[in-house]
């Protein structure tokens, strides 16, 4: 059982790390701001989500596990809102040009 959970943690965290890596590469390589923003939100959402998922079996107790999930939810909320605002600012700049 513990071995299965360990393997689950390892796989989920590795997958999360892969999404962060992919998001970072995209952030550096994508040509325009909107697609970079798209890449960044994927890393936040899936990458952090998978890392949290992998850490859940290792949390001390259900309360600590809930904190991890809330953490992910808070990052979702703020990264989503910030992406919207950066997108709107970009559109304003395009319109002004």
């Amino acid at each position, binding site marked *: 059982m513990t071995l299965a959970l360990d393997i689950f943690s390892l796989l989920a965290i590795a997958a999360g790390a892969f999404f962060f890596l992919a998001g970072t590469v995209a952030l550096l390589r994508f040509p325009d701001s909107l697609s970079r923003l798209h890449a960044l939100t994927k890393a936040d959402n899936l990458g952090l989500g998978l890392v949290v998922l992998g850490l859940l079996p290792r949390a001390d107790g259900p309360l600590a596990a809930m904190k991890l999930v*809330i953490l992910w939810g*808070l990052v979702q*909320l*703020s990264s*989503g*809102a910030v992406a*919207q*605002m950066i997108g*709107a600012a970009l559109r304003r700049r395009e319109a002004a040009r």
Partner: protein
Amino acid sequence: MTFYRALDLSLALLVVGIAAWTVLSRDLFGAVVGYVAYGLLLAIVWVRLLAPDVALTEAAIGGGATGVLIIAAGSRLRSMQTSEPGDTANGIQKALAAALSALVAIALAAVMLLLPEPAPTLAPQAAGGLEAAGLGNPVTATLMVYRGFDTMLEKAVLVLAVVGVWSIGPDRFWGGAPAPLGRTRPKRALVFLAQMIAPLGVLIGLHIFWVSADEPGGAFQGGAILAAMWIIVMIARLADPPRVGSRALRLALVSGPAVFVIVALLGPFLGGSFLSYPPGFVKPVILFVEAFMLLSIAAAIPLLIAGPPLRSPRP
């Protein structure tokens, strides 16, 4: 072990690299972004040094609050950049400043590297004296028991800073409210974020204050989170900055240092000395004082960012 070595080394290089980038950046906004990233990286360094309390403070104050403060100051500066810029430092002055900074850095590094093994420490004696306080978190206990005077003055400095900011407003606006923080019609996404995150953030701030008796946290860290919630509510224009003449606001602002001074002065009457806590009630009294400090911090930081009063006191 080598993995942690590599992690620490890359963290250290990253911190120094971002610091250099921030100093050398020509663009104000870029420099602020660099500074915030520097604060967050430094928080990770503190976690690696097993100091989660300091990490929380660094992330909240060094990364968050100071970043907002500099951005607000920068946008104000930009709007009054009509005057000629003052004299900037010439080459020799810059070289001297750089040499002095390098000297300080080298001296600090030398002291760290030349420490005897094991390093001299008073930690066991200090920890022994803290048991009477009944607090599980030694950082909170140290700040409130050994360094009570510093902690009290720290809050007084915050209040003085707010008074300083208020005093640069024009006389005719004295008692009025600072200018609104956000634009007149804020983005819907921002309003949504503020409405969703503010109640949660207040809960988290209070939680971080409350657990600080036994776990990492504290009045400063919790207060900074509460302050951030007030700031985001003001930026989203859900509430505008309050009038600086408001009695409730001023009471909240001075409550932290004031309650601390009152408790400190009560010490001699309860059989102790100045700043001593009544035996048997150490933990409740410390939590009582910290609760008011939380209020002061949560009020002071947003007021520093809101700036001097710029609206007539009477509508």
